[in-house]
């Protein structure tokens, strides 16, 4: 099986498609993979929106991740789950797409994305327009074969500075080669913003767990705001991640996230971890 439309593709079938307006679809999370992080659930929603956007502009452009005003993480998706995806397009033209959406499992919402925006870049720079057209037809017709996603090895982070109770800095070495690069994207391999975010949230979770007391043991992100991706990250680049505790109360711990490549800011976000209810 080729990696294209498999190694980093998270829409298997589109069941409702109103051009330029809304769509619904499914992704069958393969049973055999180890984990399916929440950031990939967000990726699935974003990819459904991307299909609507690309179709709307007749595959002249494709959106790339740039801004997400608010993402609510409402539950964990497990291997074997069936993701029900829904997106509403707020605005779409040759320059950008704005959208919101959600993903549910058995009717229970697992993630909600509000007011996301992706600039449209020339589709030929990333993929073959005809291949994308053909794929969308397949997704809208009988759907793609399930179980194509082989899982992804999440790049590890290495802590380089720890200021107890305040901040954590870590390095993320983006692999030079990985199966997902063949799908993201075939003509221009780019480290997915959602995998960067996953690494950033892991660093923030470590900071919160070690700084915020027992009500934040094994913290799980509950909400992310102000996500902004400033530039692409290429294979082999070293990314410095920083997480700084910005607030804590009885309900949540809040962390500011940033990512730099060679001293230049490439991404920022704010993430919250909800406190566990006392047992």
């Amino acid at each position: 099986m080729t990696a294209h439309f498999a190694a980093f593709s998270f829409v298997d079938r589109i069941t409702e498609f109103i051009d330029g307006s809304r769509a619904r679809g499914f992704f069958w999370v393969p049973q055999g993979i180890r984990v399916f992080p929440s950031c990939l659930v967000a990726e699935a929603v974003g990819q459904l929106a991307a299909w609507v956007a690309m179709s709307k502009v007749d595959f002249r452009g494709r959106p790339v991740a740039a801004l997400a005003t608010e993402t609510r993480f409402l539950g964990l998706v497990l291997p074997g789950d069936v993701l029900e995806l829904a997106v509403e397009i707020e605005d779409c033209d040759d320059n950008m797409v704005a959208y919101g959406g959600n993903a549910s499992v058995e009717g229970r919402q697992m993630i909600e994305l509000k007011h996301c925006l992706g600039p449209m870049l020339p589709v030929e720079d990333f993929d073959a327009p005809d291949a994308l057209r053909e794929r969308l037809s397949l997704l809208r017709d009988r759907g793609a074969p399930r179980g194509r996603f082989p899982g992804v090895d999440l790049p590890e982070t290495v802590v380089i500075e720890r200021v107890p109770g305040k901040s954590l800095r870590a390095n993320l070495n983006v692999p030079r080669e990985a199966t997902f690069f063949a799908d993201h994207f075939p003509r221009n391999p780019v480290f997915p913003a959602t995998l960067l975010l996953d690494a950033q949230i892991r660093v923030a979770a470590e900071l919160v767990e070690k700084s915020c007391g027992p009500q934040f043991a094994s913290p799980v992100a509950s909400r992310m705001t102000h996500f902004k991706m400033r530039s692409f990250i290429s294979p082999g680049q070293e990314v410095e991640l920083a997480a700084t505790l910005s607030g804590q109360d009885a309900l949540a711990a809040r962390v500011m996230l940033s990512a730099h490549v060679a001293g230049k800011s490439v991404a920022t976000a704010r993430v919250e971890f909800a406190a566990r209810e006392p047992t």
Partner: protein
Amino acid sequence: MTQTEVTKEEIMAVYPKVAETMADALGCDVEDVKLDVSLIEGLDAESIDFLDMVFRLERTFKIKIPRGKIVENARGDLPEAEFEQKGIVTEKGMAQLRSYLSEIPAERFKTPMKVADIPRLFTPETFCKLVVHAQREAQPAA
């Protein structure tokens, strides 16, 4: 009133909300968003920040700001061919730009100026004007 005439009162009416929205987008203190600060040189804004600010202002003020509208507004009634040639702002275009961005000190208008460099001139006041224009367009014609 022509498209480019926006009164100081109109600007000051929207400025507090514009400043708050821009501070949120740029991750800076609202006090740093002075009416005349250069967004790029003073507040380190990048192209993605402009997109973010427009996106947020649309929701804050419930208006629609088509992409590229800032330069279009700055051009006013001047046809595009008279405003710029081969990506460089013409003399007529520069006069129009100086008039539209009247709040910006003359020494910041470098010549020759590339159209792509126009955003380097932008300040929060530029965005206030954009909001006022969009609000006017949203109002039904009398």
